[in-house]
């Protein structure tokens, strides 16, 4: 690691490296485009996903319905835009939660010796959880209770976001702990400690700025992971209910119509794939650009 954020020049070097990773640039651009489309799109598009039109059922693509319609004549493009908003929102919030927990655990374990062992054992414990089965069971058993407490959409949203966040922070924590341990031996940190800077000040002024890159990489990869997990749950029929479709749910509902209107399964699937692919490429590019020992920045 270099002490990037302190000076201007290394930042330029970072951008130069990042721009050389074509996949990451394209991925980042597309991801931004998708985010923009699902956030703004539903306001601009002519139809809403709930509009029934029994005279326009199971249509193919046309100018009025670029992705066709479903068995009630609802516009698929509108459903993709609105479903994407939920999917992306779940991905972002779950990723935020996961990164926040992972960062806190990782930095605390790295900074304070007495916290290291218990926190790392806790991390091991969470790594030993069978994530997918556990997610399925929890969501199946708890969603009605939360639905009751927080309302239909908010209840399931909170549950899924919390479950994904709580079961995916461990890698971030491990990487950050290692980074912090390495940083602690660096001269500027030992100097700061010798000057009597308190641990919290140390974290804020020296550690956090230096591990920011690692956190961003974790966040990008975490976004991809959260979107895949949510879609998998919805695909198994245990995610969002049919009245609040996400991409995973749309794909699940579409599988019954494979022979009639395959577009209903293909479009949501493509959108999930594209988003995840973009996030993964972006994450990889960022990591390579930040770490001179790896990938394209190597020579």
């Amino acid at each position, binding site marked *: 690691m270099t002490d990037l954020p302190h000076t201007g020049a290394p930042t330029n070097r970072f951008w130069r490296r990042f721009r050389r990773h074509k*996949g990451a640039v394209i991925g980042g651009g597309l991801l931004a485009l998708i985010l923009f489309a699902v956030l703004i799109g539903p306001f601009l598009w002519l139809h809403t996903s709930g509009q029934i039109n029994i005279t326009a059922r199971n249509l193919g693509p046309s100018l009025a319905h670029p992705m066709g319609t479903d068995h009630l004549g609802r516009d698929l493009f509108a459903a993709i835009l609105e479903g994407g908003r939920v999917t992306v929102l779940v991905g972002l919030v779950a990723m935020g939660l996961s990164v926040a927990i992972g960062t806190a655990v990782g930095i605390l374990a790295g900074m304070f010796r007495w916290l290291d062992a218990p926190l790392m054992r806790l991390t091991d414990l969470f790594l030993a*959880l*069978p994530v997918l089965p556990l997610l*399925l*069971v929890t969501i199946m058993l708890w969603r009605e*209770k939360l639905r009751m407490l927080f309302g239909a959409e908010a209840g399931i949203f909170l549950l899924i976001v919390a479950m994904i966040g709580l079961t995916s922070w461990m890698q971030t924590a491990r990487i950050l702990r290692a980074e912090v341990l390495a940083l602690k031996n660096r001269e500027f940190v030992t100097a700061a400690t010798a000057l009597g800077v308190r641990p919290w000040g140390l974290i804020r002024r020296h550690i956090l700025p230096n591990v920011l890159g690692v956190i961003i990489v974790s966040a990008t990869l975490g976004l991809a992971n959260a979107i*895949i997990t949510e879609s998998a749950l919805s*695909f198994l029929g245990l995610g969002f209910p049919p009245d609040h479709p996400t991409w995973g749910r749309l794909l699940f509902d579409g599988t019954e119509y494979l022979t009639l209107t395959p577009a209903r399964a293909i479009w949501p699937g493509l959108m999930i794939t594209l988003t995840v692919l973009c996030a*993964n490429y972006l994450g990889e590019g960022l990591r390579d650009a930040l770490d001179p020992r790896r990938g394209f920045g190597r020579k």
Partner: protein
Amino acid sequence: MLTYCLRRLAFSVPVLVLISFAIFLLMDLAPNDPTSNLPMSIPADTRAQLREALGIGDPLLTRYLLWCKQFFIHEPLNWLTNVTGLALGDPDRLRVLSWSARVPVVDLIAERLPQTLWVVGMSYLLGIAIALPIGIYSAYRQHGWFDHLGSFISMIGYSVPSFFLGVVMIIVFAVKLNWLPSVYDTTLRVTDWGSLMEQFRQMVMPVAILALYNAAQISRYMRASMLDNLHHDYVRTARAKGASERRVMLRHVARNSMLPVVTVIALGIPQVLAGAVITEQIFKINGIGELLISAIQSGDLPVVQTLTFLFAVLVVLFNLFADIAYGLLDPRISYD
């Protein structure tokens, strides 16, 4: 080394107890009712009787301890009895029974396991077999066209959700082309060439999808590990001694690079088993993943509890294997 193993083993036990209790608590606090799937013409008092007969009314701790006793004492004893043929203890001991099938959960799992192991095992082996050469060659010709293609494909394999790829494959190969069956036949017995081909045909799609995912992950690790090793001094020494490029790569670099990859492979097994939940759902393979989903849907708690716990045991066990294997393979690691 031995003390290290023992210490790790000792740590696993409380972890498993904690997880099993957490699983129990999670399910106890949640609302669910195994009689909700019964037809509505069954009167309410019959339902209440049924619930009582299933022991739902007992307090949590009673049921947890009973489950522990049945799972950790009775089931192993039964297994011993079956294997050795000796009558050990009371033959009528209580076992963990499924609510919907009224058979010991362990028997249900034993019936479902072969299908899952066949598909998952095959795909994992295939994935490894594909991933290692790709990883090695990609690293050897870093930035070459093969490397770029390899990373692109592995990125795709990593990012395309298996449930989407599975659905597309069914559209293409089962519905449109009608080449492959869409339903996995668990009664098929391989007796001759024809049935072997049949078995092969029905395994193609699920194995291909799981193998792609596994290969994508493992090849990335293999490539990274190779790159770490390539620039070490011993590589230069070996080349200087006049060893052939092939020999340098395979005997020296690949061998040393395998170390971290072996751990990754071992750690991946439980995740792959759990991930088969989705694949089994798509291709209608009646394996343990399908058992878990149907048990969740019908509120069959004993099956859900046992299966979830089984997955936890697998994760802990393979973590342990990976740690020990790492120590055995790499003499530089000390455990004291």
